Structures are given as C-alpha cells and as structure tokens.
C-alpha cells in the first residue's frame, strides 16, 4: 500500500524551490489574509528580480523595500486602514520597479485565463482609459461572431509559483477559509506551476467539516504542492476570524518608510530573524 504524499514543509523549504527572476503570485487582498510568513522568508532569502503578481498590500511594500521586485503586476497596492502603501509609493517614485497595471476585475480575468490555460479573456474593461497606454500586454480583440465587437484581451497571468494563506487545511493541501471573502486564492494556485498553501492550523481531513461548511473548502489539494503550518502567519494583515489586522504594528511598519534609518531599524527588529523568533518577539511585545 503506497502512502499519500506528505506535503508539509517550512516557509524556508518552500522558498528554496524558487529562483531569482521567477514570477510569483501572492494571494489575499490588500492587507487581508496575506501569506506574510512566506513573504518574510523571501525577504530572508537571496532571491532577486522577482515579478510579483498581487492584489497588493504590505507583501508588495515589503518586497519593494527590500529590493526583491523587478516587475509588479497589480491593480492597486493598499494597506486598507492606511489607504496608500508607503514603500510601494517610494519604489514607484524612484523608478525602481517595472509597472504592469491592471484594473481589479481585469486582474481576475488574467488569473482565470491562466487557470483555464487559455491565452486571454475578453472584456469591455479598459476601453477609453489610459490603462491601454500604460500596459502594453493588453491588446484589442474583435469578436468572431456577427456582433463584431472590439474588446480588450487580458493576457493570462501565468506564474511559476503562488502562495496563499488559509485559516485551516489538512496536510494534503485541502484549504479552508473561514473569513468573509475567498478573494481569488484558488485562481492564484490554478494559475501557477507550483502552489503553496500556508495555514493557521493543520487539522485531520475528517475534522475540516467541523470547522466550516463545505463551501468554505476553497482550495483543493490538486492545486497544492506544499503545506506550511504557520500560526499567526498572516500577521500583521487580517486573518478573520482567527485574528484582526494588527493596526498598531501596521502603523509601525508604515512609519518605517519615513527614512532609510527607520527602514533599517524595522528590518533589524522584525525581518532579520527567523519566523519562530518573529512570533516569539510578537508574543513578548
């Protein structure tokens, strides 16, 4: 009898499967349910020149501040309770990153196209706006049917790897969200060659049904290559209902964009340490 795969791994083991220059998707939305323990592992790594695909929050800001980002594929970057992401703004304003902007809904189509393995999906979104000027991957396409409508073709946003954070999962990668919104996490994993799921708590498969209804089981193990148990792993973003956003910490993070010294201090205090030490320091503070 052959045993099923054991997909459990650590953040550092997952990040060790990446290489510089890759296109990396990060699930969640703004400053909500972000796989932050994985982002912290990427910050500790030697990876560079990443193309980052994200409905952006502090994941994007941190990776920009640390010089990991070559190109950003996004529709917005926001900390929600702090509308503008200071490190992202600084990176854009000093011309440090290539910019590939999408409308929010367009972004969904790009992920869906990649997950369905088609080169593009058509939409009316973008017509008349400057997004066609600012993103040269967007093209026009003419309907082959009698209407002959001219629409925008959103390219498939194919990724080398994607990371999402769930409230619960089993060790095989069946992931469950218990908060208000699934965001597009299932599509990120479908659009990526390799999928990684971090989770607040690994439970036995037969116990998932006690945690929430079947429709909360957003992620299928068919899309998951690695499962990372990461309690408080979305900190300091919101991971409802397990914990809200850590607003005080987020303010501290945002203030680290004020000067190179402030960033160096934040980095030394909260990023140049292992995830276990980070969590221990949080508990002590």
């Amino acid at each position: 009898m052959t045993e099923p795969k054991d997909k459990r791994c650590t953040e550092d083991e997952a990040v060790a499967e990446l290489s510089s220059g890759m296109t990396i998707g990060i699930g969640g939305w703004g400053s909500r349910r972000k796989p932050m323990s994985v982002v912290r592992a990427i910050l500790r790594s030697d990876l560079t020149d990443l193309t980052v695909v994200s409905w952006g929050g502090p994941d994007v800001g941190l990776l920009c501040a640390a010089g990991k980002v070559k190109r950003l594929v996004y529709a917005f970057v926001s900390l929600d309770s702090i509308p503008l992401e200071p490190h992202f703004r600084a990176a854009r304003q000093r011309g440090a990153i290539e910019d590939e902007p999408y409308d929010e809904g367009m972004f969904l189509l790009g992920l869906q196209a990649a997950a369905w393995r088609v080169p593009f999906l058509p939409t009316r979104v973008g017509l008349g706006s400057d997004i066609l000027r600012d993103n040269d991957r967007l093209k026009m396409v003419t309907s082959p049917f009698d209407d002959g409508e001219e629409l925008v073709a959103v390219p498939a946003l194919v990724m080398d790897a994607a990371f999402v954070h769930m409230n619960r999962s089993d060790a095989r990668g069946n992931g469950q969200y218990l908060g208000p919104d699934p965001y597009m996490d299932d599509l990120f994993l479908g659009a990526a060659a390799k999928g990684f799921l971090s989770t607040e708590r690994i439970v036995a498969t037969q116990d998932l049904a006690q945690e929430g209804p079947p429709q909360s089981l957003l992620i299928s193990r068919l899309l998951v290559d690695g499962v990372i148990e990461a309690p408080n792993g979305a900190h300091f973003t919101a991971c409802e209902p397990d914990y809200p956003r850590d607003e005080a910490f987020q303010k501290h993070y945002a203030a680290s964009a004020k000067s190179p010294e402030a960033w160096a201090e934040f980095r030394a205090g909260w990023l140049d340490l292992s995830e276990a030490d980070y969590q221990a320091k949080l508990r002590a503070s």
Partner: protein
Amino acid sequence: MTEPTHGPVSRADVCVVAMAECFRGDGELLANPIGTIPMIGGRLARATFEPDLAMTDGEARLIANPEAFAWPDGKVIETFNPYRQMFGWVWNGRRHVVMGGTQIDQYGNQNFAAIGDYRRPKVQLLGYRGAPGNTINNTTSYWVPNHSPNVLCANVDTVCGVGYNRAALLDEHQRRFHEIRYVVTNLAVLDFATPDHRLRLRSVHPGVTPEEVQEATGFDLVIPDEVPQSRLPTAAEIHLIATVIDPTGQRLVEVPN
C-alpha cells in the same frame, strides 16, 4: 452618545441628501457608494424613496440593515457578495458606483492612480483599482469632499475612470453602458447635462454662490442663468440620519460645518 452640536441643517446633511438623490430612479440595483457621506446617502435613499436598492456591508455581503457603519443588533444578510461577485455586478451592469478621485476633469475623466508622468510619477497613489471597469460598464457618480482646483482640474494626469470625451472616441457599441451621472461635492451638485457633456453646475448648497464654486474649480464650468439651491433635508430625513443611519456623526467628520 452625545449628539454632535450643529445647526438645524448642516452642510454634511445637505451633502447626504444630494448623494441620496444620485440614486433616485435606480430601482432595484446594487448601490455601491464608496466614502462616508456616500454610504450615508445611499442608506438614506433606500430608507426613503428607493427601497429596492441593494447595499454592501463594506465586505463580502449585501445587507438589509438601515445603519451605514455599525450593526449593533447584527447584520441582516441578503446574499454573499465576495469581490469576484462584485465584478460580476460591474460587468452585468446592475450597479451604480460612487467613487472618489484625486483629479476629475470637465468631461468626468478621473484619476487616482498617480500624479505626474505615469511612468515615473511624482506622487504614486492607489493604482487603477476598479475605475476603468466601473466607468465603462455601470453607472458612475463621484463624491468630492474637498472641492478645489486641484481636484476639479483642467486635465487629469492619468485617465482611470473614463469621461465623456474619451467615451466619445469609442465605437457606439463600446460605450453603450457608459454613464457618469453626478458629481457631488461639499459645495455643489454638478452633472453633464450639456450638449458636449461638459460639467454643469446643477445646484449650489445653501450659503454657497455659483461664483464661489467656479473659483474652486480649475476649468470653466457651464453655469446656467438660474442655479437652484440643493434640496434641503426634511425634518424626517435629518432625524433618520442622526438617529439611525449615522448616529455617531461620521458625516460631520468628513464635512465639518
């Protein structure tokens, strides 16, 4: 809770009513006002003359509650409305959104992505967010809490939300769902009811003159000979706003008296 001190008709309440009026005639659709005064205005419209509007809790649900921001007795959930479904409403068209804008020009083009040259902006803002999709697919209005020449400006640096002159360059089939209905500000209500869809002064709030609105605007407004005053809230509306929809007075933080 102490009732905030204000006169019988505050500027904030006038703005709330003007915002509510944006939704008049919408019937049964998703009213999606973004911002403090817009959220109160949408609730007021639903509580009075547009009872079939559907509205969000700011997250992933449409709720029936009359309150705008806090639901002490729990949410009355009508349906699940995660982001992916919200895009469904945008593209389906059964939605009227109220957005903000860092820049809005005389044809209703809107920008909140970046100030300056987009390729290397002087000031990076949010990004395109949902503005291109909203404006080309469903009815859009704008809320401007600080009417000034920087916001209502001659030219936007990046067109996120599509205005009428941009839409006019598209084929008819491409622009058939485009409608920018109103721009409500802390000074006035404006619309595009002109032959070339240039911004027109529709009404001024009590205590504001058309000249003051023009002075606060970075382009020439179309100003009719007679500019009416914005509709005043009724006593019943003031009561509803102050006791049910916004009992903690958040509207007075956004638009102080």
